[in-house]
């Protein structure tokens, strides 16, 4: 018989935003929690994403979760203290610059109205121009959400990790899980740092989560890994008070407090899961650059000083997997398809609810692991 080297009630696999937030809420509620992370906290998509904190433009099924998360973002200081300063709320504008975009906008306005959501507000072209005086291209109007914004992602994740630690959670970095097995109602995790036992396992392993689940005996989730790319420019005088998206196009654009522009929008490069590496092919960001330069000609002459990518797991329907696995005591939270950062706080809370057998405050049906 194996003598367990460690005993824990809940083990969270993955030290990204979802793993750390889950550990935080569990520890806060008095659970014994350990986070095991194969690299270091916020190493992949959670730490190096564009930092957009938006409820705008969400899939209808995701809106309740996203709005619940926004409630948490707004009072983040009471949860993670000084790290909450890394969140910069302003407003988010997703503009239409062509007729296709306007048609998409109209259809969405109709769908939102039908579903009873009123957090996204349609601005007409002159109001968009008033909000963005430096805009250099005419628009057909756009959606506005007040209070959305951006954050420095690695600091938010570190805030949750630090908060979890303060409530007694243990976070073990450089600890890869290579075996996950349920025997007699107890989960056994084989890791770089020994065998761990747990009553509950929360799988927040991001792009690596589906393989991990599959080898533990879960059905294969249709998760694919890519490395969405981003670029950042040198500092320029402030011209952009909001985070900008474009209906029907791949662009996400913001200006940081340093004056630097972050330009992305989800252009995916290939990712190599075993080598921990994502490709960066700068020319593939060309269209995002064209849009950014067209929207704000002041951006044209900014020098791009860095480009990077983070490894992310995508689902075919672009909705995450959140819920109980097939085996008892295993709970999944992964597949956020490059828009999971804002959801992080609420996902942490609902995963903690699931572990503790409580009713989550938002419906999770659309995210069922067995929907495929």
């Amino acid at each position, binding site marked *: 018989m194996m003598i367990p080297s460690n005993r824990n009630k809940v083990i969270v696999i993955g030290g990204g935003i979802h793993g750390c937030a889950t550990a935080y809420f569990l520890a806060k509620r008095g659970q014994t929690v350990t986070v095991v992370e194969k690299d*270091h906290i*916020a*190493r992949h998509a959670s*730490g190096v994403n564009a930092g957009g904190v938006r409820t705008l433009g969400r899939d209808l099924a995701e809106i309740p979760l996203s709005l619940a998360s926004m409630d948490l973002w707004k009072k983040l200081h009471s949860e993670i203290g000084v790290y909450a300063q890394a969140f910069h709320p302003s407003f988010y504008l997703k503009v239409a610059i062509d007729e296709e975009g306007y048609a998409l906008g109209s259809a969405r306005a109709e769908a939102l109205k039908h579903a009873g959501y009123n957090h996204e507000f349609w601005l007409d072209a002159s109001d968009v121009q008033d909000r963005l005086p430096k805009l250099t291209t005419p628009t057909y109007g756009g959606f506005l959400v007040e209070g959305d914004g951006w954050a420095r992602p*690695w*600091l938010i994740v*570190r805030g949750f990790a630090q908060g979890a630690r303060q409530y007694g959670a243990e976070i073990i*970095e*450089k600890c890869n899980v290579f075996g996950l097995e349920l025997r007699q109602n107890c989960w056994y995790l084989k890791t770089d740092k020994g065998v761990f036992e747990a009553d509950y396992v929360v799988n927040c392993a991001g792009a690596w989560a589906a393989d991990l689940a599959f080898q533990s005996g879960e059905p294969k989730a249709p998760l694919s890994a890519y490395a969405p790319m981003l670029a950042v*420019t*040198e500092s320029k005088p402030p011209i952009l008070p909001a985070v900008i998206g474009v209906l029907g196009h791949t662009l996400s654009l913001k200006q940081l407090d340093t004056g630097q*522009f972050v*330009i992305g929008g989800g252009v995916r490069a290939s990712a190599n899961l075993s080598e921990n*590496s994502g490709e*960066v*092919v*700068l*020319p593939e*960001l*060309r269209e995002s*650059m*064209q849009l*950014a*330069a067209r929207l704000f000609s002041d*951006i*044209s*002459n*900014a*020098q*791009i*000083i*860095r*480009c*990077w990518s983070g490894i992310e797991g995508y689902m075919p329907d672009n909705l995450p997997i959140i819920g109980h696995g097939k085996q008892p005591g295993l709970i999944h939270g992964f597949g956020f398809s490059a828009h999971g950062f804002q959801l992080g706080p609420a996902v942490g809370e609902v995963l903690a609810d699931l572990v503790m057998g409580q009713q989550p405050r938002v419906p999770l049906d659309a995210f069922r692991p067995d929907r495929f």
Partner: protein
Amino acid sequence: MKTNFDLVIIGAGPAGMSAAIHASKFDMKTLVLDDQFAVGGQVYRHILQNNNNRTDLPFLDEDYWSGHNLAHEFSCSSAQLRPESRVWQITKNKEVFFTQKGKAHCVQAKAILIATGAMERPMPVKGWTLPGVMSVGAAQILLKTAQSGTDGAVFAGSGPLFYLAIQQYLRAGFEIKAVIDTSPKKIPLMGYILTIPALLQPNLLFKGARWRAEIRKKPFYFSEVKSVRINGKDFAESLCFTDVEGRKQTISTSHIFIHQGVIPNINLTMATELEHRWCGRQLCWKPKVDMFGESSIDGIFIAGDSLGVFGAEAAVFSGKIAIQRIAANAKRSAAIKTLVLCLYRWRQLAIRPFLDYLFKPPEDWLLPDDDTTVICRCESLSKADISNAIELGVSGPNQLKSFCRAGMGRCQGRLCGLTIQKMIANHHGQSEDKVGYFRLRPPIRPLTVLELATLSNDDPV
């Protein structure tokens, strides 16, 4: 359609030019891209322009003028040169992206030769960021390209280029206020042992010894200097140091040229995700290559000082060797010549262990003992700022970025990478190759949003 080339060479210094000349003998369709407006690299900088008025430039010696033959032969070769071209990304499929005069281009290569040379080692001594302080290499370039210099400058540091530049400064008629040499006063026994292989390059050895002897005779010379610090409020005002007898000295000056040797310029090779290894002897990262200079990606070759610092003559051979191999892969050549070239190149490496030993940078030039010295210039982070972040539990340079932004500025770690790597290694008691370097990403040269936005894949080059 992208324009296709058999060979794209990046860098028109000795390695790049000799490779291009050689490639045209094999009828390879070759494109040469270089940052500068004319060929020569750093060592033969401005060679074609200067050649027209040799007599006015008595400070340049035969070693420099020997570059003219190479540059002339290059201009007669069939290789196409695109000056003022900054390469900002190479893909694994051997596409080369570059910007020339505000316009971005892309070409497709069958083989790529990276010959981007070396750069001066970062030398974070206290006060190194003050206006009035520049590298010896930069001072030498001003001299070579504009005959521009200043009286009353102080040279501090060591290395072959250090002595060469001082010689040139003196011959150009500038008055030097002091030479602050950090290398040992007497060559230690190990140094003498290493001169034995160096005798394969007697010219270099004796020339170096002569320069050193000449400079050492001057009254303004201080040897085996320690604890160099540059003082000043808004600009450099003086330099203080401890001399060989342990006395503290201060020299007032507003121009200070510092140098501690050169290291391969790895930003392009690392951003292309080629494999690298740490070289403990030259204290730098080097791309991993086979004997022909082929990197870990098939068809991407490296030649010259970007392989490791071996000087211009070795660079000429390494350029030729790479072309021999590229031609052989394309079934155009004979193997015996390659071996002969390898032998010639090997001879050019003979003096290096001696030089590396003699001019090993002092510890306090690699990592200042003063906490307020700026390490990361782009983000204005002092040694103390970085130490504090490392103590929070940082395991490597990439993780450090998210703790204090070190290395995230415009220079992409060129001026802080090795210092930060050493700080982390010291903190954890690990070796530097274990700690590793920044993960470098394109664009490795400046590129504006508009340039990338207007990149066209099918413009003729």
